[in-house]
């Protein structure tokens, strides 16, 4: 299979930002910072997002949502809506033609509410009309008679003896082993002799931590266009994270075979996990098939907050012990995740939280458990970091407290316990590729610190932009204290626990106008991660061509899996490379058949495709691709799989559960106005091992983005759910705050490239690790500035001022 390109050695001290593995051989190939084709369009506002879709004669769909978090529906009267001029269809649960439930892991989510609503904002009815305003007004005329029911809002109310069982008669795969029907899934992890280890501990630190509900806050709201087809099927243009997972869920709801539901990816304005679940996909298709007209649905920002799952809020109890010489003895933890009304990806989030609960540390004895609850809070599921974020916030707070108890430097303490390659995780899995945890910490600590009192100019005046509060002019330095904090985390890459996590790529090589051109076709959802550059780079490197065309992602090619879990460059990138290798083999076969008799090297040398030609490894040109192909196109579609994983044992949590691990460390420098409780993050430095940066610019962009999203969770981002009514209180960008550019500090990034021999090009999934350690680093810095324990994120001014 072609030339081996996987690095064979495991270098341990590569400088950051090294160039392509075979520099100069493939212009625009891997290792180069090629520019995104959609970059300028997005910055200038010209990029066509799914919300810009348009079709002649299209109708507008609108969703009527529940105003209650838990209620029985006594009756629904749609006559007022149907009588509204311009309305073409109104659908309720009674009108559904086939399957009435769907779900990512199991089908517990009603397409439209079935006699009961389980969260504030649950879809109850759909309207299609010839104007969006008509649809909205008609929806207001649907009379729903609700009988409010008691709400389940937390662990106590979910597990109380008289708790309402939110999903009676569960038949899902976890129903049999959970301790209570309001527990979606529970995963223990047991490793070593905890009693003995506890007895060895010189200090024991326990803590309770809480993580608020973060939203993905992608900028392009849910949107799509469903066009009914003459064959009775439907064409859906949609912003999503995984076309084929949508397809698998939509087709049964429509009562159609999958081949009659044809999906094409539309412009996606960010995802971060929030587009893994269906939103309006099935709804728009149902309305289109009912009316025989194209139907567009686009949520506004308000509706978007109800239209997708959020990050699981969590309560975490941790106990750590350590010996006087600074070695961890044991860790015991209990992580309770609020899954909300429907399962979404809660089981997998539980698996991650449990298996990664010890962090990137070697701990002899671990007794961990994670579980997700069914409640009447908003459904929670995938978000960047996926269960590992919540755990990292808690265990990193514990590390600082242990270091303080032992009077050790917090970085030094972490380094003494840091895992490295060959370490055994509490799940029994050996980390069999570089795990430079201590080195990442060393690097962020070694970076120069931003100057003290950096708001002061030479004349002694204050630049308020550099102070907490910024131009709001709340301090000129009064009450401002600096703090520095560190954190490091571990995130798995790819889908875990035995999931068949494959991807498919189709690659075609042909000569057009005398030039060899490669076409790459996958169903990969480009959600901003940069697959659009990486696939072309891989094709250039593997096939030695300059021109690469990327076909739009659709379901005419096999599944690419999800654009999540930091997996797309690894898995679909791997699939593209795999298909390219097959194309190259076919090209060489053709070349041997046509020209083999003219030059012995065809039979004896390692041959590569380079600069549009077949050459020997030594660089001798044997033939041009145009001559070899002679008008023939080589076209290959192949699936590719990473190493298989296996489920965790339901009692012990043991198992080869994960594919690969990814590590990042942060140092945060903050200034806190201790009197007003306002925080300015001055600098957030990150070091991350990426194995191999296929596109260094995109890699740094991912680290910047993940770091900033982690900063948001640390100091501002939270969906506030009323604890009594379970209603969402801040579904808008007025009150759900995300960092602006003025909240975003300098973000120095140190990229390590320590190859993982098991991964394509040695790469390591890069999208999530920086999201983990950013949050605890910022909070550690705030603790350092204020001396406050701060066990909850986001940190609010009230927490810092005791008000």
């Amino acid at each position: 299979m072609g030339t081996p390109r996987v690095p064979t050695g495991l270098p341990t001290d590569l400088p950051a930002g090294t160039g392509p593995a075979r520099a100069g051989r493939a212009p625009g190939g891997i290792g180069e910072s090629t520019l995104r084709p959609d970059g300028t369009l997005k910055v200038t506002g010209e990029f066509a997002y799914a919300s810009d879709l348009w079709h002649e004669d299209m109708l507008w769909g609108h969703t009527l949502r529940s105003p209650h978090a838990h209620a029985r529906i006594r009756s629904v009267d749609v006559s007022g809506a149907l009588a509204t001029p311009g309305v073409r269809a109104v659908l309720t649960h009674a009108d559904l033609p086939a399957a009435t439930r769907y779900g990512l892991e199991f089908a517990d989510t009603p397409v439209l509410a079935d006699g009961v609503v389980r969260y504030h904002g649950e879809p109850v009815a759909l309207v299609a009309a010839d104007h969006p305003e008509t649809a909205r007004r008609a929806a207001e005329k649907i009379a729903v008679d609700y009988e409010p029911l008691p709400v389940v809002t937390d662990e106590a109310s979910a597990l109380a003896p008289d708790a309402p069982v939110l999903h009676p008669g569960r038949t899902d795969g976890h129903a049999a082993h959970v301790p209570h029907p309001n527990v979606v899934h529970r995963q223990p992890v047991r490793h070593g002799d905890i009693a003995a280890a506890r007895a060895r501990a010189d200090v024991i630190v326990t803590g309770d931590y809480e993580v608020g509900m973060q939203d993905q806050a992608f900028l392009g709201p849910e949107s799509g266009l469903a066009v009914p087809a003459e064959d009775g099927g439907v064409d859906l243009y949609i912003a999503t994270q995984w076309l084929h997972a949508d397809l698998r869920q939509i087709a049964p709801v429509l009562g159609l075979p999958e081949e009659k539901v044809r999906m094409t990816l539309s412009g996606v304005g960010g995802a971060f996990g929030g587009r893994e679940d269906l939103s309006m996909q099935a709804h728009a298709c149902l309305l289109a098939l009912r009316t025989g007209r194209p139907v567009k649905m686009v949520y506004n920002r308000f509706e978007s907050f109800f239209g997708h799952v959020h990050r699981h809020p969590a309560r975490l109890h941790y106990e750590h012990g350590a010996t006087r010489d600074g070695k961890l003895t044991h860790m015991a933890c209990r992580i309770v995740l609020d899954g909300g009304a429907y399962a979404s990806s809660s089981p997998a989030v539980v698996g991650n939280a449990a298996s990664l609960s010890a962090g990137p540390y070697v701990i002899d004895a671990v007794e961990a458990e994670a579980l997700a609850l069914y409640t009447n809070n908003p459904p929670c599921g995938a978000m960047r970091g996926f269960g590992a974020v919540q755990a990292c916030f808690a265990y990193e707070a514990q590390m600082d407290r242990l270091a303080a108890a032992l009077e050790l430097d917090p970085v030094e303490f972490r380094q003494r316990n840091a895992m490295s390659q060959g370490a055994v995780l509490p799940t029994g899995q050996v980390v069999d590729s570089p795990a430079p945890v201590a080195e990442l910490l060393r690097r962020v600590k070694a970076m120069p610190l931003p100057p003290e009192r950096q708001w002061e100019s030479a004349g002694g005046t204050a630049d308020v932009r550099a102070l907490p509060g910024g131009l709001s002019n709340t301090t000129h330095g009064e009450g401002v204290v600096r703090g520095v904090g560190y954190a490091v985390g571990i995130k798995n890459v790819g889908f875990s626990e035995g999931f068949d996590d494959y991807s498919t790529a189709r690659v075609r090589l042909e000569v057009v106008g005398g030039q060899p051109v490669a076409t790459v076709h996958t169903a990969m959802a480009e959600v901003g991660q940069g697959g659009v550059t990486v696939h072309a780079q891989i094709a250039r490197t593997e096939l030695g061509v300059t021109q690469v065309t990327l076909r739009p992602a659709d379901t005419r090619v096999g599944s690419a899996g999800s654009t999540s879990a930091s997996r797309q460059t690894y898995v679909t990138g791997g699939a593209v490379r795999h298909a390219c290798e097959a194309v190259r083999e076919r090209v060489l076969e053709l070349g041997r058949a046509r020209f083999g008799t003219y030059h012995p090297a065809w039979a004896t040398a390692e041959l590569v495709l380079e600069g549009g030609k077949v050459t020997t490894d030594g660089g001798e040109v044997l033939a041009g691709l145009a001559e070899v192909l002679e008008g023939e196109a080589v076209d290959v579609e192949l699936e590719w799989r990473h190493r298989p994983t296996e489920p965790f044992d339901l009692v012990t949590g043991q198992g080869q559960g994960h594919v690969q691990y990814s590590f990042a460390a942060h140092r945060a420098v903050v200034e806190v106005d201790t009197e007003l409780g306002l925080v300015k993050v001055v600098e957030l430095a990150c070091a991350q091992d990426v194995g191999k940066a296929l596109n260094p610019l995109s890699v740094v962009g991912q680290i910047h983005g993940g770091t900033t999203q982690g900063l948001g969770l640390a100091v501002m981002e939270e969906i506030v759910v009323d604890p009594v009514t379970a209603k969402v209180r801040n579904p808008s960008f007025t009150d759900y705050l995300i960092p602006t550019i003025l909240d975003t500090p300098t973000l120095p990034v140190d990229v390590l490239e320590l190859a993982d021999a098991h991964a394509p090009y040695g790469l390591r999934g890069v999208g999530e690790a920086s999201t983990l350690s950013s949050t605890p680093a910022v909070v550690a810095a705030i603790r350092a500035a204020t001396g406050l324990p701060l066990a909850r994120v986001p940190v609010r001014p009230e927490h810092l001022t005791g008000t």
Partner: protein
Amino acid sequence: MDFLRPGTWEEALAAKAEHPSAVPLAGGTDVMVEINFDHRRPEYLLDLNRIGDLYEWETGERDVRLGASVPYTRIMEHLRGPLPGLALAAHTVGSPQIRNRGSVGGNLGAASPAGDSHPALLAAGAEVEAESVRGTRLIPVERFYTGVKRNALEPDELIRAVRIRKADGPQQFAKVGTRNAMVIAVCAFGLALHPEARAVRTGIGSAAPTPLRARAAEEFLDAALAEGGFWDSGRDLPPSLARQFAELAAGACNPIDDVRGSARYRRHAVGVMARRTLGWAWDTYRGSERTTRCA
């Protein structure tokens, strides 16, 4: 919804007289958000964008007569001298795009307790020039706010301008939000020293149903400054004096707990801002060099 587009001020007044429920629209930074969120569906929108007069201002002997539609950006660029407190407040409004459209007239029309310009207007001293086909009247700004999102305008009246006292001393404005830009006030505080009148005026935002002056704090400080001869001596203010002023300012608040902040925090933060802004303003009055580069 009918869209009325008067070409002149007189036509606008006539339209408002004919349709008292009409909602005036200038920059649209508030009204359009409410319409988009479906919080209100007015029968009539009265578009004032064609009325050029509303975008102008005149600087007189005593006042700046600020047209109702003058965007915040213009205030920041052109009126920093006579209206320093309002210019500081303008800096904290929304984003650059919002500041290019939003105006003090709109802030007054909406009468949200969280409007950024209110504390600055209260501290500086201002009168709202309200006009209808029946005539013009001047409403002192402290009597303009009558309740949460309610003001003293009659149904047929429009805001033509705001007459704001030109600064005769240092002014300050501070606002707490939970991020460093583009944020609605959790609470805000405006302070103006009026050396000619030997008076201090204040304005509190977002910490009571309406924007308001901290009268007890003002009276206490006026008396203390007079008694101690501080206006003449320009001496440092004793910390105890600033502290008591801050406590009285905090005491003037009547805040609520909401998703943006707790009542307790708001009261606390107003106190901190009162103490700090007084310190900064007094330092400036004393001729200290401590000024802020961006303030």
